[in-house]
């Protein structure tokens, strides 16, 4: 199959189309739910439409979008950084650290679980960096080994804590680890947007360098890229994105895998196309999954991680099969 040339026009068109898909989702998804609402009545401030739309559904859709976009962009980044299409935002241990922080908070009966989760993510990030920097220079390999090791340690500690937790705590831990989107205050959304959007813009700005790194470290170095600095900045930004959204929603699997890989198959591997498209369509995908999660068995809700995994599992198998055919 021919791979299309990447031009500024193509990047703009792809980005705008993806943005339009996201805007359409923002317009439609808040209308879906067990209670029927009307935009006209909601905008006019009439009850209960205004409360349901602006107080519950819209913030939830926006949180799902920021989370989905951040995870998809981080997925693209980690796949390039590690030169592995099966890498996810969770491969390098930050989300396990976030989960460990959350589990400790749950076990101690703390109410600010997301703060503990953010602290856990930050500490793990520093530990992975310290271990990965032990060798002469930071490389994708040392980062991967350090990340996988810390990931295993955090998961072991989570299981250890859970084995001593009460029934209620254990339920809360399992629920948190499944991942879920809830309505959050607009101030929280504003802070999240302030963290996510500049990070994604930075990733987009460095697109051509991720292209080189996705081929190889020596390949990038012999084309003028300072690979150690680039790998370090990529790891920090990717982990920051992952840690921030995981602290609010818990780990939500497959978004960072399905969206980048599906897009790579359709629009190619160039990060100038992949990063904006992954952000906007990752946002759209998770918002749709969350709408399914909250409506399919309404009034009961399924954790969104279950929906992404149910959609992601078969996709993952198909991806492995197509990959083995190619090689």
């Amino acid at each position, binding site marked *: 199959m021919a791979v299309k040339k990447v031009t500024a026009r193509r990047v703009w068109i792809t980005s705008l189309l993806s943005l339009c898909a996201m805007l359409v989702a923002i317009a439609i998804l808040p209308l879906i739910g067990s209670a029927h609402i009307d935009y006209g009545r909601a905008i006019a401030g009439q009850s209960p439409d205004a409360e349901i739309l602006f107080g519950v559904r819209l913030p939830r859709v926006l949180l799902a979008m920021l989370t989905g976009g951040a995870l998809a962009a981080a997925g693209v980044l980690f796949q390039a950084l590690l030169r592995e299409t099966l890498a996810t935002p969770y491969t390098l241990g930050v989300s396990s650290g976030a989960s460990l922080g959350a589990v400790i908070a749950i076990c101690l009966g703390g109410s600010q679980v997301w703060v503990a989760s953010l602290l856990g993510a930050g500490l793990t990030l520093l530990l992975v960096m310290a271990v990965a920097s032990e060798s002469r220079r930071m490389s994708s390999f040392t980062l991967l080994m350090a990340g996988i090791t810390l990931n295993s340690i955090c998961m072991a500690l989570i299981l250890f804590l859970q084995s001593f937790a009460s029934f209620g705590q254990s339920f809360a831990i399992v629920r948190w680890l499944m991942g879920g989107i809830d309505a959050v205050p607009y101030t929280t959304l504003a802070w999240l947007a302030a963290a996510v959007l500049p990070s994604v813009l930075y990733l987009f700005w460095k697109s*051509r360098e991720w292209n080189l790194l996705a081929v190889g470290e020596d390949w990038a170095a012999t084309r003028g890229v300072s690979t150690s600095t680039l790998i370090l900045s990529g790891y920090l930004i990717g982990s920051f994105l992952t840690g921030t959204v995981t602290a609010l929603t818990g780990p939500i699997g497959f978004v960072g895998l399905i969206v980048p890989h599906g897009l790579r198959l359709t629009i190619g591997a160039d990060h*100038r196309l992949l990063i904006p498209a992954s952000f906007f369509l990752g946002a759209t995908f998770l918002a749709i999954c969350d709408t399914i999660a909250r409506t399919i068995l309404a009034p009961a809700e399924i954790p969104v991680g279950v929906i992404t995994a149910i959609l992601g599992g078969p996709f993952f198998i198909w991806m492995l099969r197509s990959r083995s055919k190619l090689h």
Partner: protein
Amino acid sequence: MIFRLQNVGMHYGASEVLRNVTLSFDRGELVAIIGPNGAGKSTLLGIMAGLRTHFTGECRLEEKPLAKWPRRAFAQSVSVVPQLQPVEFPFSAEQVVLMGRMPFSDGMFESAADEAAVAHAMEITDTLQFRTRDFRTLSGGERQRVILASALAQSPKALLLDEPTTFLDLQHQVSLYRLLRNLCRDGLLALSVTHDLNLAAAYADRIIILHNGAVVADGRPDEVIHNASIRAVFSTDVEIQQGPSGRPWIHYGR
């Protein structure tokens, strides 16, 4: 002199892979580096490419130590053709070649000059027909030519090649060395690590033999390639004759 190495040595753990290598290279030279497996050829190339930094001695590009060169400025002068370059993602052959323009580009997109350099590099390496093909679907030899095109798109003053003919058929092996010879006439320094002694003898201006990490011979092909040097380094008896052009020709015998 474009490259100057003074007493360069390197260890991998306890094993010494290069010792006291003192060499200099000028523009316009086509140099072949030969030697048995583990002689230190690729390590030497890696040092000159700026990829191996923990060596002893001194390596200078245009009289400036390699460590003092900013990465980007260095890449505007020196490009590398690796022995093997796996690509995991679906980049087209043209995108792979365009990556060679990175040291010259500032913005998010390639300029018209970049496009022209890429088209020229693909034309002279006979890869234009693969332009839109997924790099991963190309044969080994086709990939190697695309990699060469990417290195040439860098418009280098020095081109370092690590066993560039490994995957090439006979036609493209000969075309590669003819292309290098022509580029060297225009002032390029081409340094090729190779195991094909006949290609080296036929096209190189100068052959360097490395053995156990040290330079054991350095000179014109007819000065360097003879029974004693080949036997001493490769532990193999061969028959060496003079070809029609006066260059040595190696018969491997049976």
